[in-house]
């Protein structure tokens, strides 16, 4: 069983990157990851798979963030911004951010985390068939917006 300290050093950055893709906010991503570790700390010895636990925690916290902060999401500017310094990628990122939160989470978990849709469904608490439908709709929307 790795220590909390070691796990933090190993996973803090990848989890922060995942949280950023899910929330679109670097500040919120930092908060989400800190909260994930904070919630894991008191039960650390009982967690069998820390990486999976923390990833699930980040996904849930990001989902909760979307649900509870409608105001902020509403006012979030989603126009292309210079994130990667590559205009085409920045434009695509802006379109991903504009997806409904579930579709966006499916896209991020499938294409960034490389998770099969069954696993994405487990993380999001949705049947695999629904996740497939989410992905299909997201891709259709992105394809249309990019064309």
């Amino acid at each position: 069983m790795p220590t909390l300290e070691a796990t933090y050093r190993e996973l803090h950055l990848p989890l922060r990157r995942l949280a950023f893709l899910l929330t679109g906010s670097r500040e919120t991503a930092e908060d989400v990851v800190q909260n994930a570790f904070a919630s894991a700390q008191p039960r650390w010895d009982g967690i069998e798979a820390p990486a999976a636990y923390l990833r699930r925690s980040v996904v849930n916290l990001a989902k909760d963030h979307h649900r509870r902060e409608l105001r902020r999401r509403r006012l979030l500017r989603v126009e292309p911004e210079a994130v990667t310094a590559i205009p085409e990628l920045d434009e695509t990122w802006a379109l991903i951010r504009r997806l409904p939160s579930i579709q966006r989470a499916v896209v991020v978990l499938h294409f960034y985390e490389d998770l099969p849709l069954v696993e994405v469904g487990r993380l999001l608490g949705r049947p695999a068939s629904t996740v497939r439908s989410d992905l299909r709709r997201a891709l259709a929307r992105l394809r249309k917006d990019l064309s």
Partner: protein
Amino acid sequence: MTTTRPDDRRDLDQHLRRTLAAVAATVPEQPPVSAQAATKPPRRRWRLLVGVGAAVAAVPLAAAAVVGFGPEHVDRIPPSDPIVSGSLDGERWWIVDGRDVPRCEGHPSGIEVIAEDGNIVGQEWNTVGYFFGEPTAGGCAPRSTNATPDYSYWSDGGQVVGDGMLWVGALHPEVDQVRVAIGGDEPFEAKTFEHEGGTYYAVEVPAGTATFVVDYLVDGEVVVPPPGESAEHVMPPG
């Protein structure tokens, strides 16, 4: 480095992978910190959410609103001296006097909405503030405003409470009636309350509601929403 627009599914998949990897890579390494420090609750600030203007989600929101992630921790729930309180879908909420921010000394503090679920004793506040009028450059409530009655449509907003929504607004002084219709039900007049000389209201929109309408009236006449705003609001999916 250049990239091209995707033409087919495989191209789109690769394009998305490349985009997400490139965006993720912009999140930098940070200097190592101890796990103990990392597991402290995040310290947050007041975040000004006014004047950014984009309108993308299902729920129209306030121009004159702030989300308060105050640096102070929740010391007691229920809060002391609530102006208005209620319970929606099993979750309690309170409206209190807006907190005094040093940089806004001399400005009205407005009101602040506290939902039970997001504010746990010992953790940090997570509240939403409301006031009427265009905020100052520093994000403070204005001492006076030339805003017209239709600005009331910019000074309302909702937050999820339970699986319902608490819809709150700050009113122009000439607005004398807030008419609310939830779903297909008969419209009713929302109760208002005064605070610091301003008039506010709060409406509980039950879980399961698809849409609701909030009209502002002056002398019996409905105020027309400004361009880009609507009196009808769509509840977000649960």
